[in-house]
């Protein structure tokens, strides 16, 4: 047994790795419903509704609130023991009535939980019943997604609710519209804004769904709006079936909705990686160009050139550095590619979300690595930490929970992903696009160079770096 190092926060994490079949320690994922809640917040005038015990809703709202430092509104069916035995129909119908009466949203987006799924509540049937009973006012809509917590992860929950937007709203009039759909995946409101900005300066009309910009990064005005200005509108969602095409960003979060639009309304799609980093952003901009015939304006080329400029200027700080990455699959794929493109090497890559395709893809991206690469889907941060103990890295990129590993192992740390509970910035400053790439590099360089400054002794400290 290894001796306990009492200076450590994670003092029970051993270097010796024992394979585990049943116990998850320090998860690198959370459950589906929170993703559905986040996605639903990206519809204008929508109140997300959690169909289960009220604790789920409280936990999801708390976590999203801590991450965004913004109001996160959602309601719950508040199951009691009785509802758990007899089913949640009465609770949901009452909730629908109360929500429309008191909070007056345009849409209620219901997602299920492990509780209501285990009971087997049939949400479409309950919604029909509410409709029959006149609980849904004219012009208002109740939609739903199934998000049992014992399947997938928060990212697949996001995907399910995004697909529900297509299922419930998309229509085809037969006339193709001069617009494209963008499904941004689970990224920050700032990222969604940046993706729209890039398409906008190319002169492309887009419908983005979901779109949490303007909702979870709203201004302080002295007024509270339960339904802020942002979000995709119902009109927008309806029109997605008439779009020229769909750009879906991130396999895990966005492919389901893109497939649904293609299957149902023959809207062709391009499934791309999240535009994090030079090459993924190149592919995104090029896809916009090809799909619409728009040309890429010089201003975008300048942004690209600026990102390249940082890379060439600072290459000595990146070269052959080893990085540990923990987060969500779509982010990690693009991040890994970005790091490799600047000659940094991801060596330990862990996501909590299940899916063997992730491991294969990371394997391809890191195939030229001079180092041994550990990759795991459905892994956890305990395993990640053990890998780091056995093979230390120069930098870790991950959510706030990485702070404890970074401190214990004294490794520079860049926050990226969900949740970030102890820093601000992610709501306002993107990491997608060329500009986002520049911000990421600034963060990475600050972490690495602050460390170099900290560790340099008086003889060899540098003023100019």
């Amino acid at each position, binding site marked *: 047994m290894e001796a306990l190092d009492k200076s450590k926060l*994670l*003092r*029970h994490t*051993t270097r010796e790795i024992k394979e585990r*079949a*049943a*116990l*998850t*320690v*320090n*998860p690198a994922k*959370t459950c589906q*419903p929170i993703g559905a809640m986040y996605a639903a917040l990206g519809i204008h005038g929508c109140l997300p509704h959690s169909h289960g*015990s*009220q*604790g*789920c809703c*409280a*936990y*999801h*709202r*708390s*976590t999203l*609130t801590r991450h965004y430092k*913004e*109001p996160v*509104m959602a*309601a*719950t*069916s*508040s199951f*009691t*023991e009785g509802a*758990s035995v007899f089913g949640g129909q009465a*609770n*949901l119908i*009452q909730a*629908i*009535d*109360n929500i429309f*009466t*008191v909070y007056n949203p345009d849409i209620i987006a219901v997602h299920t*939980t*492990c*509780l209501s799924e*285990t*009971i087997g509540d049939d949400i479409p049937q309950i919604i029909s019943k509410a409709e029959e009973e006149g609980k849904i006012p004219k012009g208002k809509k109740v939609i739903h997604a199934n998000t*049992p*917590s*014992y*399947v997938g*992860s928060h990212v697949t929950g996001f995907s399910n609710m995004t697909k529900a937007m297509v299922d419930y709203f998309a229509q085809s009039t037969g006339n193709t519209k001069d617009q494209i759909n963008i499904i941004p995946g689970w990224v920050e409101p700032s990222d969604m804004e940046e993706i729209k900005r890039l398409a906008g300066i190319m002169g492309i009309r887009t419908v983005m769904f979901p779109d949490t910009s303007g909702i979870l990064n709203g201004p*302080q*005005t*002295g*007024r*509270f*709006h339960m339904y802020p200005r942002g979000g995709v509108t119902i009109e927008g969602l309806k029109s997605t079936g008439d779009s020229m095409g769909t750009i879906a960003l991130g396999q895990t979060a966005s492919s389901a909705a893109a497939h649904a639009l293609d299957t149902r309304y023959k809207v062709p799609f391009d499934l791309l990686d999240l535009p994090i980093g030079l090459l993924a952003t190149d592919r995104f901009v090029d896809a916009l160009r090809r799909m619409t015939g728009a040309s890429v304006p010089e201003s975008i080329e300048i942004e690209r050139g600026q990102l390249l400029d940082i890379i060439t200027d600072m290459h000595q700080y990146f070269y052959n550095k080893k990085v540990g990455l923990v987060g969500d699959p779509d982010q990690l794929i693009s991040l890994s590619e970005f790091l490799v493109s600047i000659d940094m090497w991801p060596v330990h890559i862990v996501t909590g979300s299940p899916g063997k395709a992730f491991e294969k893809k990371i394997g391809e991206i890191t195939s030229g690595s001079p180092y041994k690469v550990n990759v795991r889907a459905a892994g956890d941060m*305990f395993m990640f930490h053990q890998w780091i103990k056995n093979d230390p890295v120069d930098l870790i990129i991950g959510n706030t929970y990485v702070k404890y590993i970074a401190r214990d192992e004294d490794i520079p740390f860049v926050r990226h992903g969900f949740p970030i*509970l102890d820093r601000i910035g992610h709501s306002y400053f993107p990491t997608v696009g060329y500009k986002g790439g520049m911000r990421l590099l600034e963060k990475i360089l600050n972490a690495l160079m602050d460390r170099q400054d900290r560790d340099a002794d008086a003889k060899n400290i540098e003023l100019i770096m």
Partner: protein
Amino acid sequence: MTVSGQGIETVDPVGLKKEILEKYPAKVGRKRTKQIIINKVDDGVVPEIGANVRTIPGIITQRGCCYAGCKGVVLGPTRDIVNITHGPIGCGFYSWLTRRNQTNPESTEDGHNFMTYCFSTDMQEENIVFGGEKKLRQAIQEAYDIFHPKAIAVFSTCPVGLIGDDVHSVTREMKEKLGINIFGFSCEGYKGVSQSAGHHIANNGIFTHVIGTDDTVHDGRYKINLLGEYNIGGDGFEIDRVLEKCGISVQSTFSGNSSIDKFANAHTSDLNLIMCHRSINYVAEMMEKKYGIPWVKVNFIGAESTAKSLRKIAQYYGEKDLIDRIEEVITEEMPEVKKAADEIRPRTQGKTAMLFVGGSRAHHYQELFREIGMIPIAAGYEFGHRDDYEGRRVLPEIKVDADSRNIEELEVTHDLERYRPRKSKEEMEGLAGKGVSFRDYEGMMPDMDEGTLVVDDISEYETEMLIDKYRPDIFCAGIKEKFVIQKKGIPLKQLHSYDSGGPYAGFKGAINFYREIDRMVNSRIWKNLKAPWQKNPELSAKYAYMPNR
């Protein structure tokens, strides 16, 4: 925006209540009317309030669930138990380090600290279909093999109860197999009507499986347990400092900065002090019945309340040494506190506060506000019961409904070997005559002014109505409410798990709190919400674009 404090004179609470209720569907209104009370104090007697009743589906609530109360609140801060959440991943994830319970692992010799970890069985679909007991058994084995803990606790989430996993038989079996203390909690989220049910279940579990398992009697002339103190932001550390300075040994705190070892011989103490009545009174009641330890309600939030609570302890022991020492400590600590309050009071005097939080905190923190001249104008609990509002004298009137019936009440009798009344019946009566009332809590409402509003399980909509009508200077609630209120231009202080800062308990904590409230209610930033052109939109000049000049 109204002027500070204006709300209390201009708002008619009766009219406001009517206005609030009008918007609700009739059935909801009938329910809420019992939970929105205009306070009236008549010789310590206050109006009846509806509390600990079901949350109304669709009405946005502050409340969480039974699991949150059991695993998150009561057992979460115990650092040397491996707490395994049995269920899908979310519940364990959300309760991982998200309350600011501080702990000092160096205060137990082995230095175990699992609070930075999250353990879960991460149940998958096949576990739901075929049962999760096998996975749970395996998870306990793996936790034992890797971490070698002294104890393992298992917390059930919603689906566990539905699929019928018997966590108690699995934990019993594994306890026998591994030879360490292993126990389970049936704290499925749907039980009860709020976190409160989880507190009760946690109390029952600690009482059954831990307290009384170690008869070692530690040194200490005056030995107490502190119940219902969770060491948020270091509150417990400050209380420990004050008590130790008085010569009082804290045998065990439930459950801030706690260790299972210290729970185990809590039954050797002389007295139980109760901070958060709601979350922990069950343990105190049961310990009195089983071991003969009396309990008194204390409040270490607020300097005056701290002094009062210390004097209560002094009276209990009735020994001159202790009485003198406590007076010395109070005399020593108070000048700093008074100095801070006097310095800050001119900036806070007459400002108003609303407190909607917890099961005791909405009451306790009113003291701190009053100490700097602020006025609590509305308050309520998220998961309190009637006794927390109206006092324990109403306990016999409280009807057991379907939701509370599901929470087990343990049958407790004298422990034949360990029962030892700390005071005789006559001594207890004598002390009660001198104002040391045992087993008593007067509740929040008798301490509040007439005409103030008391709202149980306040909804988001009601919160907005109160804010808009009264424009208080500060609002106290939790993280979910924080940014709604602040978007309205009013600062919100989180009082469950302080958003930042602390400690706010004891003498030093009082000073911290005064400063924090001064910072918040007098921040310049709230004056800058409007840009100049928003304040004065009229234009006199005419726009002309003259690029060449």
